């Protein structure tokens, strides 16, 4: 099922471009040019996420945000030309899921939107695969070549954190924060031990890993499998 994105922006050219970008990626779109139009259409559109401009001809996006949230609790990303700290902090402080400053690259918009949708509409029983490794996030089980592999809670957390950002580098500090609730000094070596054990369980040849790669000095990256 395709996600439905509701775009509120008073600039028709930008609205048209964003619609094209989202449609090409398989999203459904609906749009409004003003606060009044947005409130009217929002009730019927039933969107999965909203891209909301801050400065609108008949009001501001921050007020509209509250009204939209009263109608339906959907993820909202502010898409604004206002780059001041105050505006960003106000938007995020109100409870928005992200704040993107114009001008932006289409890829940036898509990645951020995907991240928000993934976070909000997380499928708990989803199955994922990494080469010959099948992961069931709901049941917290991992199978390699059809045989169940036993992962400790820390190893599973590590795998999940890397999977959520797959393709991207995750820093040592972020991983430590996920495992020990804070970027603790001196935990790097312990992290390396966990990584080595995880490799032994998910890699065919742990000495020459194909998926869980080290980025020297920075952290680790889980390589995207084919078709991902």
């Amino acid at each position, binding site marked *: 099922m395709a996600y439905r994105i509701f775009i509120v922006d008073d600039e028709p050219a930008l609205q048209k*471009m964003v619609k094209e970008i989202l449609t090409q990626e398989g999203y459904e779109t609906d749009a409004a040019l003003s606060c009044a139009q947005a409130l009217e259409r929002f009730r019927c559109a039933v969107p999965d996420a909203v891209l909301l401009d801050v400065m609108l001809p008949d009001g501001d996006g921050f007020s509209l945000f509250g009204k939209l949230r009263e109608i339906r609790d959907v993820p909202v990303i502010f898409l604004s030309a206002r780059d001041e700290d105050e505006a960003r902090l106000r938007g995020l402080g109100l409870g928005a899921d992200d704040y993107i400053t114009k001008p932006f690259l289409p890829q940036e918009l898509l990645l951020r939107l995907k991240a928000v949708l993934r976070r909000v509409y997380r499928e708990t029983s989803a199955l994922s695969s990494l080469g010959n490794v099948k992961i069931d996030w709901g049941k917290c089980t991992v199978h390699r070549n059809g045989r169940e592999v036993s992962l400790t809670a820390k190893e599973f957390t590590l795998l999940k954190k890397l999977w959520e950002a797959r393709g991207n580098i995750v820093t040592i500090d972020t991983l430590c924060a996920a495992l020990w609730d804070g970027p603790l000094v001196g935990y790097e070596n312990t992290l390396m031990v966990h990584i080595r054990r995880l490799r032994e369980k998910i890699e065919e040849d742990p000495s020459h890993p194909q998926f869980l790669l080290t980025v020297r000095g920075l952290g680790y990256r889980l390589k995207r499998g084919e078709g991902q």
Partner: protein
Amino acid sequence: MKLRGLQKGAMLVTVSALLIFGITLLGWFAFGCYISDGGQDWNVPMKEYSKALTWDGKNYTFTGENLLEEDHWMMLLNPQGQVVWSLRKPEDIPEQFTLTDVASFTRWYLEDYPVQCWVRPDGLLVAGSPRGSVWKHDIAMNTQDLLQTPIWFVGIFLLALGSVLGLAWLVVGRWFHQDQQIRDAARSNWINGVSHDIRTPLSVVMGYAAQLEDAPDINLLYRQKASAIRSQSQVIRDLVNDLNLTMRLDCEMQALRKELLRPETFLRQIGADFLNGGMGTEADFEIDLPETPLPEINADPYLLRRAVNNLLTNCVRHNSPGCLIRLGARRADRWILLWVEGGTVTASKETVSYQPLESDGGAAHGTGLRLVAQIAAAHGGKAEFHNGTPYRCELWLPIKES
């Protein structure tokens, strides 16, 4: 502009000082003139009255009635204290005075009448004025104190002058600062407005250019052109962002949101974001951090990230198709050095200390590097740019005092 304002302020203060000095001199001159005749005569000098009163062997004759005002009076006491002649003497003034009475009224008042006295061979001439018309006080002073009076006078004058000058300087400074603030706010609003208005059309340009760049059904040459439009639009975007921030820092309108940062964690995240964002695809990237943990720094992560990103972006932009970019940190005494090196970017100066914007409100060249220096300065540090191969920039930031 600033220099002209300061000159104007200094001139105003100098003119005020000269004015105060001139008025004081005038006051002194007037006072000097007033006391030149002894400061004892309220109307006509007693000497004139005395000359006008003569003894012809039988009677006293006074020829100076025109000198004596209507409500004033006179009397002459003989050496025994008896009134031997008087003119318009009030009824409550007695005819006979004792030594004590004379000693008292010569210094104070006679029945509340302010009086002046003049010693003559035949007695004491007394001239009285109406009650309440003159204030008189007997002054006696130690000679040593009297000699010190000019010193005290000059000291108090200098103190007063200093206070007035200080106050004037404060007022002028405040006025100048307010004036500057108004100009800064106007300039900042203008830049903010322009950059705000440029953002939406630039989004459309960047968006469509990126779409064309990735479109498989378009000729490679046109895709390359679209790529150039996209990348140059990004340059404009970064310039607009930098210009806005540099302006706010310049006018001290950017509040620092400092927090404690671990340099290693901070730099690793920047490095990861740099590579994840695809900026480092053409370059080799290395991070160089010491094995011993570095002390924390108290800094605004958003601004500091902006500074380091500017340096990384600079390396990429000026070294196409790629070079080795190294990001690192080390401790130097009470400073933490965050450094970026790579390529051969040439900065105009070896050490760039940030300078205010040009007087016409336009940004100086090299806004990106200037912004780096401004951010370092805002944190109480400095930025050093070292030309050569590899080009190296160091951000010196103070270590958080525990």
